[in-house]
């Protein structure tokens, strides 16, 4: 069945869960090993970013470069799902300070979201029958 013929109710809950909990979509589709690996990778990247005191992006506009960096970074952070929400709810607010370790941390936080974005797309493709 192609993606356009798959009813939205068949893949939307899976995509929503995949975003909210990294690996959750794969778990719902009974791909438990892949789900565990995706969850572990996203969690490790996020924890590494937090322990290196990386900064979370908040949307800012200005010139094109600033808009791209801050809005793109915010969207990437948001892709971490529940990890991002928990981090914000628990009051993590690291300012963007100079230093290579903080900078690596910021990149790890963004990478955790982008890895989950890949997992969401993969879960969508499995749910719509494009992949197994």
């Amino acid at each position, binding site marked *: 069945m192609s993606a356009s013929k798959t009813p939205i109710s068949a893949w939307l809950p899976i995509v929503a869960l995949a975003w909210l909990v990294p690996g959750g979509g794969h778990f719902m589709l009974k791909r438990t090993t892949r789900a565990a*690996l995706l969850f572990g*990778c996203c969690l490790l990247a996020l924890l590494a970013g937090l322990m*290196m005191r990386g900064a979370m992006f908040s949307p800012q506009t200005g010139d094109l470069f600033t808009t791209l960096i801050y809005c793109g970074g915010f969207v990437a952070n948001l892709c971490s799902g529940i990890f991002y929400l928990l981090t914000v709810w628990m009051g993590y607010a690291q300012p963007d300070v100079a230093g*290579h370790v903080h900078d690596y941390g910021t990149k790890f936080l963004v990478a955790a979201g982008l890895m989950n974005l*890949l997992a969401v*797309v993969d879960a969508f493709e499995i749910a719509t029958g494009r992949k197994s």
Partner: protein
Amino acid sequence: MPKMTLSHMEASLLFALLASVVLGIVTKRSDRERMLYGAYCFVCFIGALFGLGWLMYLGHR
């Protein structure tokens, strides 16, 4: 939350490992292909890390 300080090398290796696992999982269709592609991505990351490292070193001599 404990604080962690990684060197550039350690941070790059950790990133390469995590990204390779995810890329292997989401791009291929069989478990064997996933493992091979994950290993291939990891080797490419490490190759780029050392290649660019040497390039910067030689460029600054």
